[in-house]
């Protein structure tokens, strides 16, 4: 890893950066009360392209250590997301509820839900660092950008109910805080048990591919014209793939 800094600390800081990026989603609300749906959809399209490009990088790195292990890990990633969705079905309190009346139980439940949500993203950051600092940086950027529309969505719910921009940003960041927390154990695990690396890289890729296909892309197509979404996603995807190749 880089000279001087404890690698676990570095992974934690990168994970923290992705969480802080979520707060950026509150910024547009400094000058507007509500966000244009089309703008949010195109932000999702950019995030989808970056995430897909980052997944290509994860799969390519993982395949170098073991192709079938990477694909098997991907299967586990997809199953993990499906399982958490099944378990949490109907039990997700929205951030707006908690901001209204912060009952301790509700907050606790929300922290559990967020931890599960951010688990795969945290694992992605940690596992990617197992494949090298460059890959770790790429995945960090992709997840950070993906978090911005999430922060936008949270703020879009809270702001019209009178929450200040600062508290929108704060809750957005809080919703992603499990990411740095999950990234460190994932990193330590793949570092100390190398055979798990392709599995972990595949897990992250599978989970991220699935999130893009299930949420980001359909959300983008719903609120913006198809040609724009297509062009934005394609250009970000190829740009991301080529950026990784040129490193």
């Amino acid at each position, binding site marked *: 890893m880089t000279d001087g800094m404890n690698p676990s600390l570095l992974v934690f800081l990168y994970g923290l950066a992705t969480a802080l990026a979520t707060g950026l989603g509150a910024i547009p609300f400094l000058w507007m009360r509500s966000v244009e749906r089309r703008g949010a959809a195109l932000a999702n399209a950019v995030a989808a392209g970056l995430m*897909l490009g980052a997944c290509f990088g994860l799969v390519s790195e993982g395949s170098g250590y073991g*192709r079938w292990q990477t694909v098997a890990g991907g299967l586990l990633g997809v199953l993990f997301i499906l399982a958490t969705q099944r378990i949490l079905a109907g039990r997700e309190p929205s951030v707006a509820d908690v901001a209204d009346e912060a009952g301790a139980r509700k907050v606790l439940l929300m922290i559990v839900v967020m931890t599960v949500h951010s688990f795969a993203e945290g694992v992605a950051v940690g596992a990617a660092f197992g494949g090298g600092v460059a890959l770790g940086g790429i995945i960090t950027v992709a997840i950070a950008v993906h978090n911005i529309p999430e922060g936008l969505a949270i703020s879009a719910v809270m702001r019209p109910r009178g929450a200040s921009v600062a508290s929108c940003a704060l809750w957005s960041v809080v919703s992603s805080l499990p990411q740095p927390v999950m990234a460190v154990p994932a990193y330590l695990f793949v570092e100390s048990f190398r055979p798990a690396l392709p599995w972990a890289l595949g897990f992250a890729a599978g989970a991220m591919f*699935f999130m893009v296909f*299930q949420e980001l892309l*359909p959300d983008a197509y719903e609120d913006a014209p198809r040609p724009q979404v297509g062009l934005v996603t*394609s250009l970000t995807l190829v740009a991301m793939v080529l950026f990784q190749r040129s490193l």
Partner: protein
Amino acid sequence: MNPTLTVLIYSSVAAVTGGIGSLPLAFRSSPPTRWLGWANALAAGTMLGVAYVLSASEPGARAWELAAGSIVGVLFVHGVQRAAGTLSLDLNRLEQEEAVYGYKVLLATALHAASEGVAIGAAMLVNLPLGIFMALAIALHNIPEGLALAAVLRAQGLTLGHAASLTVAANLNQVLFAVVTFALAQAAPGLLPWALGVAVGSLVQIVMTDLFSHAYRQDGHTSVALAAVSALGMVVLLSGG
């Protein structure tokens, strides 16, 4: 075997499999919309997998040529879709439409096939196993794509046999593009990274504008995501084997 002949044979196989996709229509002449959703999602997943394999195929290729090629590929497909009027056209309408609608859908398929041809030709030049893999992956991709196209053509009042032959015919320019790309890049090896880039860019653009956008309207997000990610995983698993 003469390498050009190899390209010709494999790309022909890939073009012909489109006809297989029309077989389920022998049982249900008007398939449930869900089938089309799965077909589009499977086609999207295989195509994205193919784009991934191509983008990772030539570690030595210069990044900026690949980059320029990919951007050309994305913009080229966007431009052709715009010129042909298929950019925001619903390609899977199963109601009786004007004849011009059927032609536009065939045109869109022919454009897909052209990009796939470039992919096969470029991959054959990287190395033979990659080229064969690419042709087989695209052959697989053409089956669900053929199902969607044949369903539209059947809805236009064509017989099953006629719809199946038109599906194959719309894919035939794949052979031409594969052979020409192979021959050009063989004569001028400097073109190879460009060809790879164009293939990656155009395949990605087709996945994003034509395949996913339709799938989400035809089936639930979760089953689209599952079908796409399974097809993608399958392509990755079998690549380079």
